[in-house]
């Protein structure tokens, strides 16, 4: 053991198998040094909220690529049928408990970018982009939201705020309509 190695009993202290009081007097200073080391451990939580929608968006893109290869002719026909239909943001999988998986869907011909902003993401238009579904005009995003009532709107090309065409809406008090989703 060199002077730079902790004494075996101090290692037991670090492992939580001994307390400082268990150490002989000559090891107390070394024990305190070891405990200072542990006190510096950063146990702060890490939050990566955007991971959920980014994972689901990647899975959606992969699925679309696979479908495009397998079902290109059928998809083309389906896209043509959907062009003028706004589909409501509807829960697609109600989970027991307080969280519900929701898929937001908007058909937006000509859009380059679509996101959803609402009470669940601080009305941040950059927080939750929708992903283009295949090569068509349908945009989708899957989120996990707590049960309860949420208000939201779609943001097209970062500029146009539009309510969900088929969901109920309320006046936001500033002349804009917010869609309402109750889970």
């Amino acid at each position: 053991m060199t002077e730079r190695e902790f004494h075996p009993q101090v290692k037991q202290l670090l492992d939580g198998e001994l307390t400082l009081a268990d150490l002989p007097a000559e090891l107390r200073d070394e024990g305190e040094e070891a405990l200072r080391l542990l006190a510096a451990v950063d146990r702060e939580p890490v939050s990566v909220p955007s991971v959920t929608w980014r994972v689901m968006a990647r899975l959606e893109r992969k699925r679309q690529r696979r479908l495009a290869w397998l079902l290109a002719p059928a998809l083309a026909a389906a896209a043509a049928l959907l062009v003028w239909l706004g589909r409501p943001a509807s829960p697609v999988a109600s989970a027991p408990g307080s969280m519900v998986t929701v898929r937001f869907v908007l058909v937006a011909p000509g859009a380059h970018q679509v996101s959803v902003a609402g009470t669940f993401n601080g009305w941040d238009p950059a927080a939750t982009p929708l992903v283009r579904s295949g090569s068509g005009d349908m945009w989708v995003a899957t989120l996990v939201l707590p049960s309860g009532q949420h208000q939201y709107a779609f943001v097209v090309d970062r500029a146009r705020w539009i309510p969900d065409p088929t969901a109920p809406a309320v006046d936001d008090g500033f002349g804009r309509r917010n869609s309402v989703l109750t889970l």
Partner: protein
Amino acid sequence: MHADTQGPSDGEIVRAVLAGDRDRYALLVERYRDRYARYASRMLGSTDAADDAVQDAFVRAYDQLAQCQDPAKFVGWFFLILRNRCFAEQRKRRPHLSLEAAARVPAGQRSDDGAESAERRRALQQALMELTAEQREVFVLKHVEGLSYTEIAERLNTSVPSLKMRMHRAYDRLREQLRDHA
């Protein structure tokens, strides 16, 4: 790093996803992303790198979900995928320590503990990045995630004595690094 008991169980979600209800997978991501992001951020020295690693691991886990032999143990299986991703990342690059560890200390805590405490955290994180990935991992699982040696051994499919040997080397190297730093 324990299973969330609210809502459907991991096993129920995995079975639902495998049966075609793929949107349910978001529940698993939501449930585990933050706690495993902490593991990854301490392993990789950066929250950004951890964010990417956790994303990749969840996508890979989804692709291989049919190979999850015991759906109830999804999280242990997922952890091994994330672990492989973190180790692969380490092999690819010399880890660059960010100063995030100090920067992330909340302001309120800074006023209590002072800049010295933040500096000690930063120095320890820097020293952790000088360990081997295996040594760092056992330190992170025990002292950041709060797992016992027995729990770590089960998770990594190894023995407690070998983990202790790894950890005790880590203690010595950390001491050396921190003394050099001081």
